[in-house]
């Protein structure tokens, strides 16, 4: 076999080579494993293409065009002029999936940022400081976990709905409902991460390097943030990645049921809101394209998260 023929040479070469290069860092090793993960690379490429789609697309079409309605061309099937067809009031579905995608991704990213912050904070306090704080926070986490997330999201959407004013940012107006959705997804999806962080802090705080840091006079704050947190980072990163996929789906569910982002701001979910009626009329393009984009994005993120898990934690078993 080819491998045995070059083995001796290779070992010699490798040794010479190794003495020249810098030793591999942990991050470098992780990147190496990640690159070899075929699914993860596919996921990365899919996401790259999707981001190119919503960025380049917004250079081609303006937002005003995406919201421009022309009732003379309503519910037109896909054509050369409107490749994805037009919706009930004659807006181009192609242009709306571009701007809708931006909002969907912004919502997903910001809500995951919020839920990671809440989840990590609660997990750290419960796991590191323990005692009363631990039991109170864990009972609270259990309480949130005892209700189906979707029902909780719908209740919260109703609770916050209409209370947040519209926001003008970077020359664009964002419906207040966008902020509402970010808040409620952030407020409901931290539970899994809180438990994860708590359990890694419970193990890590007993280890020798923490003892050493304390002996050197490090404060609790330094130990928690500078010594333990980097060691607990890998599962947080994986959970954050997969959390983005989850947030995109959750936004889609809420908006599909009409409690999410309100018109004229589009998201992939809200574009499909009236789709049930369109089904029996045979207007498949109204719901097919936004849904397809959701599936591709979520699939790409899931591939990526899977690769990230294998890269960051080589001991973890793959399901």
């Amino acid at each position, binding site marked *: 076999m080819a491998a045995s023929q070059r083995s001796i040479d290779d070992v010699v070469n490798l040794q010479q080579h190794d003495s020249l290069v810098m030793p591999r860092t942990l991050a470098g090793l992780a990147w190496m494993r990640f690159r070899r993960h075929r699914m993860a690379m596919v996921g990365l490429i899919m996401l790259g293409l999707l981001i190119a789609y919503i960025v380049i697309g917004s250079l081609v079409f303006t937002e005003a065009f995406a919201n421009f309605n022309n009732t003379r061309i309503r519910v037109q099937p896909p054509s050369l002029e409107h490749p994805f067809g037009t919706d009930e009031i004659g807006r181009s579905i192609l242009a709306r999936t571009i701007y809708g995608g931006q909002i969907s991704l912004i919502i997903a990213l910001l809500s995951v940022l919020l839920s990671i912050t809440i989840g990590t904070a609660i997990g750290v306090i419960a796991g590191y400081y323990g005692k009363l704080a631990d039991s109170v926070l864990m009972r609270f986490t259990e309480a949130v976990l005892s209700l189906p997330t979707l*029902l909780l999201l*719908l209740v919260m959407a109703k609770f916050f709905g209409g209370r947040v004013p519209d926001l003008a940012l970077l020359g664009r107006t964002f419906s207040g409902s966008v902020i509402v959705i970010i808040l409620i997804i952030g407020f409901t999806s931290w539970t899994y991460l809180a438990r994860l962080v708590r359990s890694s802090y419970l193990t890590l705080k007993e280890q020798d390097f923490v003892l050493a840091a304390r002996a050197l006079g490090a404060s609790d704050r330094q130990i928690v943030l500078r010594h333990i947190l980097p060691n607990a980072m890998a599962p947080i990163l994986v959970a954050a990645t997969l959390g983005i996929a989850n947030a995109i789906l959750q936004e889609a569910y809420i908006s599909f049921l009409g409690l999410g982002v309100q018109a004229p701001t589009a998201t992939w*979910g809200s574009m499909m809101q009236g789709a049930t009626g369109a089904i029996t009329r045979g207007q498949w393009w109204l719901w097919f394209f936004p*849904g397809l984009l*959701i599936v591709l994005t979520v699939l790409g993120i899931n591939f990526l998260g899977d690769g990230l898990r294998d890269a960051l934690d080589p001991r973890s078993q*793959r399901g």
Partner: protein
Amino acid sequence: MLRFIVRRLIQSIPLLFLISAILFVILNNIGDPLATLGGRQRTSAAERDRLERQLGLDQPIHMQYIFWLIGNDWFQFDSDGDGVGDRYGTRRGILRGDLGSSFRERRPVSDVISDRLPPTLLLMGTAYVFTIIMALGVGIYSALRPYSRADNVITALSFILYSMPIFWIALSLLWIFAVTFKQAGLPYLPTVGMYEPGQPVTVAQVARHMVLPVLSLSLISIAGYSRYVRSGMLEVINSDYIRTAYAKGLSGRRVLYRHALKNASLPLVTLIGLDIPFLLGGAVVTEQIFSWPGMGQLFINALDGADFPVLMGLLMLIALLVVIFQILTDVVYALIDPRIRL
């Protein structure tokens, strides 16, 4: 065992109180239940006062919570608005089995919920049984030929299905089997409801109406569960006791189903036990698309009308079931796995 169950039940009491208190505050602020009670006309101020007194909404929130909890038959109400209590309440509170009355339907919440429970149980029960059978089948099939072409195709399909919003699956199925089939003159499936209005309700008819909702509900779960079955089987299949079983001369089928599957399905038991109570609420989207007259639709309607006695009843019922099924899961797990002692 009994001590374990009793201890867990006692531990769950404060949890349920915590859930109910949080929900009560949130649900009290989700909207104005009186806005839609007057029908088309706007509710007048005097009418609004009367309704608020009647429904007990004029009381401060902590009193409303206490009434919800233990009833108000010990409390003198001011029914005519002169500031003097003159009449005792009639509610007995959830602790005495009274969930209160629906604002919209003006009848007990327990009646409202029990009307909607059978359709949801029928739909979700069928979907769940179908999911488990298919997940076992698919999972075992791919575990027996790991990394083969068939296994890889199944893996890819599971990933794709798992990334789909349930409503997109439902819409696609509707479009294919109800709309396109009808256009092509093929036998097609109905789109909405549980049976055809105006026709006698037969088993066959309900079954026909169930095909698409059940498929929509199961596909994603099959994708998820079959991965667990597959990895469970893969782990077990190479262990020593399986080799021993083969060495004893048992048939492959017997080794597979009696020896391997029993251990491989342990994680599935946990998964099933913890998922079952969520099924009651899980049908929200599917019931909405297929107009299935179940609890999911009830929840959406109650949310629309801010009918919080119904919402409270529904959510607390689910929370209670979650607690009970968590305990049950641990008990069943201990029964089938003798290594675990409670």
